[in-house]
């Protein structure tokens, strides 16, 4: 496969349900071997977008290209999908359940069994293989569901809210697993409304709100472009220089820290030097990058 070619291209995709416009004119590109965050509040159109990518629903207009081909049923086996709403057969044993979903993706026999055992061990579920699914806790069921989405080693993995309902320990396990998939050069689309999670995992993001794309690009670049030139500061000593209007535009208390907003164009280095020159003891000095949440809010206000 051509390394430079995007794994997935959406070009002007729209979808309506009756009078309700779920996705309007959405274009995006997902590159290979990266984690792509599809973020936005509930009801923004994330799930509809994903359903079109996995070929459950067909767009009203626009084009979807996957692995360099137009979307088709033949490509379905190369996609792994963890839907937002978890669905497992409650009365099936975990092992049989995984076996069935493996067969649905055309993985069979010994190969399927080996992969199932490997994944159960990886996610600490081996002891539960012979138990009925309904006996498992929600978190465990979620891990089983995750296995169903990776059992066929898909090239594109689509995870819709993969962390909901997981305890902190399992969130870490899940994060590690996702990063492992990334290092195996798989492409991952992560849909979530939890901005912090997207921040900690994604390479690229696409923000959507009310069916429309608000912003997309590399996460690092987005954050840099939204940088407000702010510093989180903790120090002991005279604070007179913070009132210098040539240096600082605003100061506010954030927890134990002071958040200092510098005059545009002023380097944070200058502030640090001035603080040291003023004989203060600096205990914390950190550039504040805007959170995705902040960026999202700002962007939504801007477009509204």
């Amino acid at each position, binding site marked *: 496969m051509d390394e430079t070619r995007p794994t997935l291209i959406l070009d002007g995709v729209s979808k309506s349900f009756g009078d309700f416009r779920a996705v309007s004119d959405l274009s995006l590109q997902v590159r290979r071997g990266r984690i792509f965050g599809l973020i936005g509040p509930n009801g923004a159109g994330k799930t509809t977008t994903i*359903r079109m990518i*996995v*070929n*459950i*629903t067909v767009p009203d207009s626009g084009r979807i290209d996957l692995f360099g081909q137009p979307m088709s*049923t033949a490509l*379905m*086996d190369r*996609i792994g*999908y963890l*839907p937002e*709403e*978890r*669905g*497992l*057969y*409650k*009365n*099936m044993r975990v092992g049989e359940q995984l076996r*069935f*979903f493996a*067969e*649905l*993706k*055309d993985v*069979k026999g010994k190969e399927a069994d080996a992969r199932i055992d490997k994944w159960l061990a990886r996610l600490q579920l081996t002891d539960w293989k012979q138990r009925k699914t309904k006996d498992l806790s929600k978190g465990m069921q979620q891990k089983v569901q995750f296995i*169903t989405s990776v059992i066929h080693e898909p090239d594109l993995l689509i995870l819709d809210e993969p962390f909901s309902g997981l305890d902190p320990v399992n969130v870490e396990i899940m994060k590690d697993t996702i990063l492992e998939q990334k290092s195996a050069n798989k492409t991952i689309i992560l849909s979530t409304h939890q901005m912090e999670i997207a921040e900690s995992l994604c390479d690229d993001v696409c923000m959507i709100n009310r069916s429309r794309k608000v912003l997309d690009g590399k996460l690092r670049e987005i954050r840099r472009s939204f940088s407000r030139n702010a510093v989180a500061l903790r120090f002991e000593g005279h604070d007179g220089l913070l009132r210098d209007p040539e240096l600082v535009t605003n100061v506010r208390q954030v927890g134990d820290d002071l958040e200092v907003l510098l005059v545009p164009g002023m380097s944070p280095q200058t502030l640090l030097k001035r603080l040291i020159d003023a004989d203060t003891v600096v205990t914390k000095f950190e550039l504040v990058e805007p959170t995705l949440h902040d960026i999202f809010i700002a962007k939504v206000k801007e477009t509204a």
Partner: protein
Amino acid sequence: MKKFFAVVKREYIQRVRSRFFVMATILGPILMFAFAVVPGLMFRINSGGPTRLAIVDQTGRMYERVAKELASENRFGEKSSEKPEGLSFNRDSTGRASQTGRNIKTSFAVEEVRLNGRSLDEVRKDLAARVASKNLDGFIVLPPDLLNGEQPEFRARNTADLFTKSKVENSINRALRSQRMFENGIDEKQIERMSVPVTLDAKDAGGVESKGESSFYLVFGLGLLIYISVLLYGQFVLAAVIEEKETRIAEILFSSMRAFPLMMGKLIGVSLVALTQLAIWAIAFLSFSAWLAGSSFTLPSIPPSAFFYFLLYFLLGYFTYATVYAVVGSMVTTTQEGGQFALPIVMLLVMAFYLSFNIIRSPNSPVAFWASMFPFFAPITMLVRIVTERPPLWQILLSLGIEIGTVIGLMWMAARIYRVGMLMYGKRATIPEVLRWIRQA
């Protein structure tokens, strides 16, 4: 295609292994047997001892005859039950099975009460008191002008007991007839000769095979079996579809395969479960009758063609109803809603079953014809016709053609509705919406 088999396999194995399947397979025949036998048993038990009747004979010459007829009423019952006939459970002392109604043993203990100078009203009051205190079950007053058409009077504790009432009525009628003949100068012996009753022995038109009751039970049993199996396995399909929709498993399924093979896999998987169960029952039935061969029990023999038609109409019936159930399941949001929506379907099936009673009586009436052409009735009604009195081949073929056409049409529609319906959450689909899906798909 491989995925289709994966669906069939899952559906089949999960169900056949379930506790419900094992229980239903074992208990099914027991329950069916109980349905056929228990009502008969109940009648027997309730009838208890002999019915105690007092007779006030104001004619002064009828008591003997009425008492004799009441006694013979009893004997007739015994007589016909001794006749060996197909399903003959009532030959041994414990079985009472099949022949409900006609020969319930109602023996009568009769006593004569004379006026002895008292007024009729006094005697009536006296007897009514005895009935009330349960040392008598009823009494008959034969008025003085009975022979000239005056009506007798029958009072009983249980006026709802129609069997006793009709027996009393018949006995009085027969006694009256003989008495009238006697009074017109015909001698006793002649009267007896003139009153010898007949017993009908029903054979089919060719006179070859004596069907009679055993055939009735066979037809009834096959109709009941189709009715129950289609209902049961149709409901399974409904429940399975709703489960996949409610738990959103559908989403993963649809992201792995197309809707049509998925739906077909489900329908066929469940049908194989049903066939497995029927096969177990058939084998059990056949080995049971082989084991019984030569003993005093005989089960009705089933002609091989009946097996064939049963299988054919069961499958057609199943696919007709199960497809509709699958559609309903994909339209609703909860199991309860599914139950409500499925009610009209169940009603159709119930109607077909009840129609079969009428059809057993007259299998070639216009009602029977039309009922066996209507695709939602035909699986039961046509089978009933075929087994009772085989209709012309063209009718069978026509009904099969209509049935197969219906199944194909329903599946074509269902595939369109299924895909959209299964992914629609939150609210129930309306009929106009569904019609739009069919047009647009």
